[in-house]
């Protein structure tokens, strides 16, 4: 039995929300329109990035995705504990700075296609809020482990 998928999936909240560790050769398709932006998520992603994906048939991981985006690692600590930024951090900065040229008058987006909306709706806030906290205490897991 192939173990291609072993260790490469994350299930979130016991629901239809999945994430998959991208591998060489994986790709995005769109039957309705040219979709260079979405395809680039896979093409530009390095090994170790994830695709967050929801399947119509969550029991079999089949069917069209109702929702999808990528998890790209933008920073990590090296062996000496120093902050390292990855090339994906540039993707983040681009999405922050991206021009809002497609936005219609009065801040609306009437008559956009799905792809135009995708591009506009993924423009980011340049300010992000955080609440910093240490790891959770190991105190509650027993109730969530399988028997």
């Amino acid at each position, binding site marked *: 039995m192939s173990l291609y998928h072993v260790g490469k999936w994350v299930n979130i909240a*016991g629901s239809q929300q999945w994430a998959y560790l991208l591998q060489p050769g994986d790709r995005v398709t769109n039957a309705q329109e040219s979709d260079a932006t979405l395809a680039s998520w896979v093409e530009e992603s390095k090994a170790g990035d994830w695709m967050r994906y929801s399947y119509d048939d969550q029991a079999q991981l089949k069917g069209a995705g109702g929702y999808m985006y990528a998890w790209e690692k933008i920073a990590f600590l090296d062996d000496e504990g120093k902050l390292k930024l990855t090339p994906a951090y540039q993707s983040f900065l681009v999405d922050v700075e991206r021009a809002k040229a497609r936005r219609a008058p009065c801040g609306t987006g009437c008559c956009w296609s799905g792809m135009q*909306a995708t591009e506009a709706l993924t423009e980011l806030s340049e300010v992000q809020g955080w609440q910093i906290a240490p790891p959770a205490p190991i105190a509650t897991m027993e109730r969530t482990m399988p028997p």
Partner: protein
Amino acid sequence: MLTPVAATARRWAPNANLASTFPPNGSIPWERFATSDKPLVFNSTSYTARAGTYSFLWGCGYDCYSHRTQCCYPVAQCLIRSGAGGAEWASVKEAGFEAMFEKVLKTGASPDTPPSLLGLWYMRGNIAPPETLFALHDAEWVKTAEGGYIGLKHQSYNWSADATCWGWVWWRFRPAAPFRFEVSPDGNGSE
């Protein structure tokens, strides 16, 4: 490798009612999915259709929802600048933005964090605001006998929100119960 706990960090506060949130036997039947060695194809048709729906709602009303919404912008700025709710805010145009990454990554890590999930992650292409950046090393991780991992992660911590009214409200009033993450076994488990 454990890193020092930040002196100013807040203590994680798990929800006391987890038993009703997560089924006790909720492990994923991973063996069902270990059958293909072909590259995967992700179909984005439904995704762009959903974005189009958002576009319709946005275009025919007012943008009160996107990552960059200007809805009640003055209120949002007042809440953010006053520090209401305890969040720390940082702009990409300021030197402190990348320093915030270091603060998040140096909160200390659960010793059983899956190596493939270490680091700070950007939700690239996520059209559902206000979530943007997140870390998972601070979840409550345990290894399963099969070589997988189960973790509980609270979105209130080490999980960023946009500087908008919706972002502040979402961040302040998001569900108290943590998310349950389950990573598929690596095939090298003890059983």
